[in-house]
């Protein structure tokens, strides 16, 4: 018995105990997303030309915006002509080929931001349907 007790004591493993000190969770500061609006709206840039859709609750209309220095050429494909005819900015819409219409701008965005143009064209479309 004495021998067995000695052997048991010798090979008895010590229990593994680890004290984990509670850590304060590090606050995660979420920075606001600063992605340009035209990227968020799915517009793609190819050289100086941007392609995408003017999206409104009345429909999405394919668009194209080309940058020439500080000036922009703004196009819309197959716009809702019957509605836009009622809008005060209708004379600024000029029909080109293949249902591609150019929208003449009297004032270009002074910071060269095409997102402002997208919002503006979408506003004209919305106003055309609601007026």
């Amino acid at each position, binding site marked *: 018995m004495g021998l067995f007790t000695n052997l048991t004591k010798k090979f008895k493993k010590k229990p593994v105990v680890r004290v984990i000190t509670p850590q304060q969770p590090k606050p995660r500061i979420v920075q606001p997303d600063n992605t340009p609006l035209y990227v968020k709206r799915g517009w793609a840039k190819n050289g100086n030309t941007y392609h995408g859709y003017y999206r*409104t609750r009345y429909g999405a209309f394919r668009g194209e915006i080309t940058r020439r220095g500080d000036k922009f050429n703004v196009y819309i494909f197959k716009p809702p002509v019957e509605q836009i005819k009622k809008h005060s900015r209708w004379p600024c819409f000029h029909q080109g080929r293949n249902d591609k219409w150019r929208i*003449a*701008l009297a004032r270009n965005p002074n910071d060269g*931001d095409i997102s*402002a143009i997208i*919002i503006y064209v*979408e506003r004209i479309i919305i*106003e055309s349907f609601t007026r």
Partner: protein
Amino acid sequence: MTKKRNGNNGNTEGLKRLLVKFVGGEKEPQEVLIGPGTTTADLLRELDLNTNNFSLGKGQADEVFGADEALYPQLDDGGLVYASSQVIAGQ
């Protein structure tokens, strides 16, 4: 919910905290506090933006604030507003 008194930053009671984002994404978003009666033009001036060249909106095309429009009743504390360049169609 509006801001209560804050000992470190002075009295902000009754002010609303907004985040102004620039649609072009080239400028960093800025936090501002506005009080009752603050108009779009007041806020743009505070941001050093020309009131003739910029406008504020909620991000949707049909939610653009007029230059003299009071922002306070239209925005919630912690709200988001977008600043964008003025664009005008013309022949």
